[in-house]
């Protein structure tokens, strides 16, 4: 299962899903994709061993609802849900785990309410649920200096209703469920476990909870809505770690966040993303002009503004330098793409810094650069870094997520949101041919040693086998 990725969009998680399905032909697959409204079209050709694609739209039309107030079953489940969500962050591990258990139980009760004919959508948006939410908020004195309004409760419950729709979907039947990430897609794994006892594996590329928190920092939503929604994500993430049989973080950095949120270290097994080293061969030559390449989604999380500003400093020191940015903006990210274009024009970089759209051949895109840059403010274990390394290109990247684990000493890792630091590293590398060549060769060797697709696939084969054995299947 995945949310908002394969097979409808490009990006690291989609690459990984495609790689995993094609790379394990001995397994038959069904893909459950949490999508926007169900009108999305797959961008990836279906692998031969993918038997079925099941879209599960979260934001489509409201399902048909029945009139009338929700019954006692729902009220009991929702009261437990609110008790977990509205309590302040619990730093004591034992108490935090007890709360995650309560939350997981509340989710199960809601699923059973829906599975036995209850109208979960209608119940979650009913005046009854709103009143319960307001009562719970006031009873817990969560925020004495800002009262919650009915509008805040409506806004939060509207979001929660959409996000909890997987609880009303028929559970999937499979030998094993593999979630590509934590969060809402884990609800699908939960229902399969509750109904059929299906064991589950969870990978995490980026940190789901971290990205939700980050997204809401700049969100102009009422504080009460932020509290309700982010606390829901926090508890859901913890419940996900609690429920899965095996957790496969994609970096040590991820592992650190997972442990903080209640993951059991005995059920964790780190699996790095792997790439096909034959596809990403070392470049034979360098571009004529000193060139920085970016390859990835055009998205605020990639903080391309920092990269463009850094390039303006680079350009002042190396006048013939170029910045080539490959990648597309998601459908809802055209505004950010436009802001990048405007910044390029404002800084007088038109022609020198270019947004080139999707790279037809990613390996060639890396070869087109002297160095590769990634200035994200949040990452998991980015493919673009590992691919660039395999191509023998030194990387300048920000110290977020698993980036420093990937790069180690084969590139330069700088603080995020710091154009001057990015520029210093780029100038240093662009001016030193020998250093570039040495780091590039080291990078390629590091990929071959740790980050090949075969290593990754073998690790998953072992995890599947062990998980099924432990579950007695």
């Amino acid at each position, binding site marked *: 299962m995945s949310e908002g990725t394969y097979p409808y969009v490009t990006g690291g998680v989609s690459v990984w899903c495609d790689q995993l399905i094609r790379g394990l032909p001995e397994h038959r697959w069904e893909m459950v994709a949490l999508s926007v409204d169900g009108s999305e079209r797959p961008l990836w050709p279906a692998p031969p061993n993918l038997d079925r694609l099941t879209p599960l739209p979260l934001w489509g039309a409201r399902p048909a609802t029945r009139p009338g107030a929700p019954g006692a079953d729902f009220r009991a489940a929702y009261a437990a849900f609110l008790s977990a969500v509205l309590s302040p962050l619990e*730093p004591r591990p034992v108490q935090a785990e007890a709360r995650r258990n309560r939350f997981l139980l509340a989710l199960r009760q809601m699923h059973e309410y829906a599975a036995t004919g209850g109208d979960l959508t209608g119940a979650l948006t009913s005046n009854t649920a709103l*009143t319960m939410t307001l009562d719970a908020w006031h009873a817990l004195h969560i925020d004495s*200096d800002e009262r919650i309004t009915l*509008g805040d409760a409506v806004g939060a419950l509207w979001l929660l209703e959409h996000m909890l729709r997987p609880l009303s979907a028929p559970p999937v039947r499979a030998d094993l469920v593999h979630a590509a990430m934590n969060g809402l897609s884990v609800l699908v794994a939960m229902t399969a476990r509750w109904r059929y006892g299906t064991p589950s594996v969870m990978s995490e590329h980026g940190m789901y909870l971290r990205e939700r928190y980050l997204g809401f*920092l700049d969100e102009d939503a009422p504080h009460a809505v932020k509290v309700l929604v982010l606390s829901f994500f926090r508890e859901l993430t913890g419940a996900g770690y609690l429920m899965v049989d095996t957790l496969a973080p994609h970096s040590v950095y991820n592992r650190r966040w997972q442990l903080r949120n209640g993951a059991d270290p005995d059920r964790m097994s780190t699996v790095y993303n792997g790439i096909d080293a034959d596809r990403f061969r070392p470049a034979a030559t360098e571009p004529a002009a000193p060139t920085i390449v970016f390859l990835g989604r055009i998205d605020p999380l990639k903080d391309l503004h920092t990269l463009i500003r850094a390039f303006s400093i680079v350009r002042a020191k190396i006048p013939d330098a170029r910045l080539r940015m490959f990648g597309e903006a998601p459908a809802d990210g*055209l505004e950010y793409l436009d802001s990048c274009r405007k910044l390029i024009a404002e800084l007088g970089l038109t022609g020198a810094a270019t947004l080139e759209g999707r790279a037809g051949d990613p390996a060639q895109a890396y070869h087109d650069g002297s160095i590769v840059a990634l200035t994200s403010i949040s990452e998991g274990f980015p493919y673009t870094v590992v691919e660039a390394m395999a191509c023998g290109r030194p990387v300048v990247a920000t110290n977020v997520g698993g980036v420093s684990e990937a790069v180690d000493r084969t590139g330069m890792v700088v603080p995020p949101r710091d154009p001057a630091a990015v520029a210093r590293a780029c100038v240093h590398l662009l001016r030193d041919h020998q250093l570039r060549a040495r780091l590039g060769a080291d990078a390629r060797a590091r990929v071959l040693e740790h980050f090949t697709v075969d290593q990754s696939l073998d690790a998953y084969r072992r995890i599947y086998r062990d998980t099924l054995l432990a579950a007695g299947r």
Partner: protein
Amino acid sequence: MTDTAQLYYDPVDLLVERMRPRLGRPVDAMQVAVALESDGITDRSAQTDYGQADVFMLAEEVWRRLGPVPAQRSARTARHGEGRALRDISHGLLYLSPSALFPVALALVGGRTMVVALLAVGGLGWVWASCSAWLAYRLLGRGLDRTSGRLLRGAALVGPPVAAGTGLVASPAGGWPLVLLAVAILAYQMAATVALFHRREGALLAVMAPGVLAGLGYVAGVVPTGPAVTVGGTSVVAALAFAVWWTTRPAPGRPPAPARPEPSFPRAVRPELSRLPVVLAYAGLSAAFLLHANAPYLSGAADLAVAAAPLVAGMGLVEWRAHTFGVHARGLLHRTGYPRQFGAAIWRRLIAEVVIVTGLLSGLAMVLLALLSATGRLTDAGAVLATAHVAVGAAYFLVFVVANHARYARVCAALAVALAAHFTTRQIGAGTADPLQDAVFFLGSAVLLQVSLIAALGGILAQAWRYR
């Protein structure tokens, strides 16, 4: 010692002040940890620079020292702009303006053809324009801006020939005058629909002004038939041409359509088709309810023929109040603490709005009745029929409220009941031979429509989530 104390700054305090603008009002220490990491702080720097075990511990300390952050509640309820109000109110003029050309059209095509055109083509145009607008808004809501424009353009260009065919089917003897009149009626209906969609009401009124003046000049006897028809026809053709051009422009508040591909027209429209029949029924029943009531009197006594004028002119007022009601409801959501308070307040407001709408339309009706009375043309039947249209206007306010909750089936049921009631009473009573009795029946059916719609709002109106 004092100097040393003044020079010492706790690095965590400095960090708190540095991060305060970025953090705003975090929800918990975990969110602080996220912000610190995205600012470049690592476990190592948490240890070496701030003396904390890791970023999470540092975040808890920053969270503690941030202290209570004052609540900053952004203004949520957008002010109901005067521009929007004026645009809404101007819709009445848009709906009324073609009637200035009816007398000259009547002289040109004759009474029977005129009635056929107004009933058959007017009814078709009502449904055609309503469904086109509904579909266009649905497509726009899904981000399919170009497809939405294509739909309106297609409907504006295909509609007039369809109207001509419909007119000829309804009255084969109508000939070219009927064809031209049918084309003009539907062309104007689509032009008005596009103008509303693109918020070009002022422009359409300006384009139609010469035609309206020519029509009024004809009535006043200062403009001969030929020039009045030519100017009126030219205005309608120009209105359609402008409308077609507007459909090639971005919808209001939308950027120029991006190069992002949109699905083919059939694929884009397919998801909406399941709901289209009920929208079609809603438009059809609306047209039937009003046209059925007025058809017998269109070419008769003046006070009966113009009895619907206050409703048509005041329809913009009705739309304005319906929009204001929605704005008020959303504002109320942020001013009330609990659903039960919201429920009581929203029902009070609904009843108040029905009274306001009735008052506004009554004012317009009083002007008309005073004019008719002054010229000695007002009968009891005319007065009651005008009153019935005021009641219909108030009912339409309720129709808009129910339709805004996408409960078209309930609207259809209420309209069907009202239509059936008027139809049945007309059959049982003296029919149109006694206009006063018929007008009383129509007034009764309008009141019944109001009551049905209020009943239709039961269980819907007070559901707070609907006003998100």
